[in-house]
């Protein structure tokens, strides 16, 4: 019954989305004015029903109802509860339902909370959101029904991909999805504003918290995903320029550009058409990303459910949405009046450079991701890897960071170069100090890590500059947010630079009792023992790492998941990590090797990764900064409302 109820809820929600779209359209075309009253409640109801359907899918996974195809293929009754729940979105159909749920809930939240927009713009926005939902409902119901029953229920399910059986999976995809799909709100706002031609500070201020909100989740999701890859895949890398990583980075870059340009529109009423276009691009890139992953166009670790038929469906949806929005943009943007003027050396000027750099990086990453497809069309096979991305994105990112040093210290409209220089001596000094120390003590370092750490030094100091000489308790929250986020960039940059410059690696075949030296640690390999987990067996190694008198026990595992219901067995590596203030010791237990002397040896891979955890700390700080900023904007909203209420009251006196 649960599965049938879920499917019924999906159909009803789809009907509501249709109703909301039709009512909104008729209203906007000058028909029945009362129809506007229909749009808000249908948006809310549609969101609630979709969320309920998703809850029912989770219930099916929790109850291990193997008569449902999706559960049988992706779950197993022996799985720990956390992974049963996470299994609901660890597959194509479930994750598309999660996508729709977030789409629906975002629409509902806009319908409930958005009070600042003009009525007709809000209706247009909600109608656009309903149109997005409707297409994805069609996709889900017609080509990826998660509630499909099997004619005969198997005795048990095939289990979830063991690589995905990690607490990280429980949080990484939903977080990323909230960010991905949250950008749909900005998209709908842009379409709504283009339809009613309300593009100005009020529209920008209304859109701003939504952009910030989804960007926070994108940041957290990417950071969590990077950490998951780092410890679960056992390669010890934190970014691989994998196509799927790239397609999550692209909307993040668009979001970063958008939240800076929307600030200009909100504060200075400039860059209006540009802001609208970025809002369209952001969610468009989310959709392109989903399409690339789901159609099997590019293969990667993430490509479950590779299916050209679904790919065609998604392509058609995207063509309608992105094509429609961009056509609307092309037709309308020409009529958007030019915004306020400003000098190049001004806050606006620096934000324009920020936007140009961010969009250039975006374009280059997109080009690198799609180039293999284009090259193959021309008869050549090419894969684009880290050397390309590091070369093109690295230097641009560093320039971007330098602009970030200056931007927050500049005044709006027009500023004086000499005054700017006077605000910077501490930051320049910090950068020079880092550079000198690295050159003297650092040994041979690549140019990019060297510059990276230097720029990190400059940014770290300069990002705090907006707080100097201010009453910290009176400093508005958005300023705090900006300072913390920019400081987070410096922290992450320092981590990336230090990790790639000073990493130490040892690969050994060790017998129990052997000692391995890596970067000041003496690591004693005690031996291995078999252990059993809830649904796997493992070989667990015990190592004791000693440095300066203190010793720590490390237990890396090599796990073997049995093949369930005819699937192949899988092995995964659980790395053991020792986190110290100066970095992380990363140990992977590999295959047993028989040595010439007959002793049982194991492959051990040890890394010392200096400051590596700063990368994720930086990511977390960026998200925290954005969150403070968003809170601040919400507070501004309440203050502004209170003031308006007061004014209204005064008028009546």
């Amino acid at each position, binding site marked *: 019954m649960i599965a049938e109820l879920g499917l019924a809820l999906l159909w009803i929600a789809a009907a509501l989305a249709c109703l909301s779209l039709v009512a909104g359209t008729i209203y906007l*075309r000058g028909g029945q004015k009362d129809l506007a009253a229909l749009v808000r409640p249908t948006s809310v109801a549609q969101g609630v029903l979709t969320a309920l359907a998703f809850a029912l899918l989770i219930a099916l996974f929790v109850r291990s109802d193997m008569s449902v195809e999706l559960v049988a293929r992706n779950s197993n009754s022996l799985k720990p509860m956390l992974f049963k729940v996470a299994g609901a979105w660890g597959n194509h159909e479930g994750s598309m339902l999660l996508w729709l749920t977030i789409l629906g809930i975002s629409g509902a939240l806009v319908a409930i909370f958005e009070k600042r927009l003009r009525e007709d713009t809000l209706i247009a926005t909600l109608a656009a959101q309903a149109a997005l939902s409707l297409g994805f409902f069609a996709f889900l119901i017609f080509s990826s029904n998660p509630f499909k029953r099997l004619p005969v229920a198997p005795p048990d399910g095939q289990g979830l991909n063991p690589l995905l059986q990690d607490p990280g999976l429980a949080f990484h995809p939903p977080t990323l999805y909230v960010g991905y799909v949250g950008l749909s709100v900005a998209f709908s706002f842009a379409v709504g504003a283009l339809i009613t031609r309300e593009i100005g500070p009020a529209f920008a201020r209304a859109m701003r918290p939504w952009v910030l909100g989804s960007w926070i989740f994108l940041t957290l999701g990417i950071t969590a995903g990077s950490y998951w890859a780092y410890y679960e895949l056992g390669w010890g890398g934190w970014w691989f320029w994998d196509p799927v990583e790239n397609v999550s980075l692209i909307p993040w870059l668009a979001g970063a550009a958008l939240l800076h340009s929307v600030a200009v529109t909100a504060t200075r009423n400039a860059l209006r*058409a540009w802001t609208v*276009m970025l809002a*369209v*691009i952001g969610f*468009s890139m989310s959709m*392109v990303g989903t*399409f690339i992953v789901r*159609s*099997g*166009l590019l*293969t990667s670790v993430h490509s479950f459910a590779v299916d*050209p038929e679904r*790919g*065609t*469906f998604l*392509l*058609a949806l*995207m*063509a*309608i949405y*992105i*094509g*429609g929005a*961009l*056509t*609307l*943009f*092309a*037709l*309308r*943007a*020409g*009529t958007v009046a030019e915004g306020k003027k400003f000098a190049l050396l001004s806050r606006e000027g620096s934000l324009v450079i920020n936007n140009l750099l961010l969009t250039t990086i975006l374009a280059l990453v997109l080009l690198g991701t*799609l180039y293999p*497809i*284009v090259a*193959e*069309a021309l008869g050549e096979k090419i894969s684009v890897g880290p050397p390309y991305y590091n070369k093109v994105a690295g230097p641009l990112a560093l320039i971007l960071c330098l602009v970030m040093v200056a931007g927050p210290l500049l005044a709006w409209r027009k500023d004086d170069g000499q005054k700017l220089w006077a605000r910077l001596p501490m930051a320049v000094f910090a950068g020079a100090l880092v550079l000198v120390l690295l050159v003297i003590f650092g040994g041979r370092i690549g140019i990019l890590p060297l510059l990276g750490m230097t720029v990190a030094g400059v940014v770290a100091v300069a990002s705090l500059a907006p707080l100097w000489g201010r009453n910290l308790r009176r400093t508005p929250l958005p300023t705090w947010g900006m300072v913390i986020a920019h400081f987070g960039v410096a922290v992450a940059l320092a981590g990336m630079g230090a990790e790639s410059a000073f990493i130490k690696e040892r690969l050994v075949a060790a017998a129990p009792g052997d000692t391995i030296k890596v970067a000041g640690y003496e690591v004693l390999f005690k031996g291995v023992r078999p252990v059993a987990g809830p649904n796997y067996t493992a070989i667990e190694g015990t190592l004791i790492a000693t440095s300066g008198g203190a010793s720590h026990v490390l237990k890396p595992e090599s796990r073997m998941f049995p093949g369930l219901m005819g699937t192949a067995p899988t092995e995964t590596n659980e790395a053991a990590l020792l986190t110290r203030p100066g970095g992380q010791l990363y140990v992977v237990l590999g295959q047993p090797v*028989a040595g010439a002397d007959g002793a049982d040896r194991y492959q051990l891979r040890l890394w010392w990764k200096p400051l590596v955890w700063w990368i994720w700390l930086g990511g977390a700080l960026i998200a925290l900064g954005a969150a403070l900023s968003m809170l601040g904007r919400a507070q501004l909203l309440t203050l502004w409302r209170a003031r308006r209420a007061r004014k209204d009251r005064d008028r009546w006196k």
Partner: protein
Amino acid sequence: MTDREIMFFVKLALFLLSVCVVGYLAYRVQSRRDGGPAKGNLVLFAPLAIMGLLFGAFVYRLTVPGETLIQSQWINKPMPLFDLPPATAGVEGLKSSQLADGRPRLVNVFASWCIPCRAEAPQLEALKAAGIPIDGIAIRDRPDDVAQFLNEVGNPFDRIGSDVQSSVQIALGSSGVPETFLIDGKGIIREQIQGVILQEQVPEIIARLEAMK
């Protein structure tokens, strides 16, 4: 045309049609409100044009799916140079110069630890019985294991080189085991078969090697 292809083109047509309809509707709405077409700025159509190009590439790729097997770049080129020691006692090692003795032959990349390689053994025996010289390259293997493997499944190989570090395998552009290379009499790689040779492929392989003579 197969049903699948026909369905694909039907969908493609529907999709292009819907794009046109949406574009036209947007245009109509716009013109009605403005009382005529907008003062167009062609630059504003640039994002749309870029999107069109991008989607063109997507449609192309969906129609012509990429190859899932990676073929060696060495096809129609001479064997890379190598000189491998014997993989086990009693069977000679393998040198690349030995592969150009005028007789077309097979080079089979295998390993004792590879289960599909066991499944392939009868087909190799059949090819051997048809008078085709077969050489082997044992990947990441130990002499004792190779001996046991040959003992269990039979030995179709004239020579077996031991490639402990997979270096020759990588040089050959082979992506796994088992893999079989068809070499003509001059030591030039003509074809690559990835995975197990199937029963029904045996006659075809014999015919191809005949043709190389």
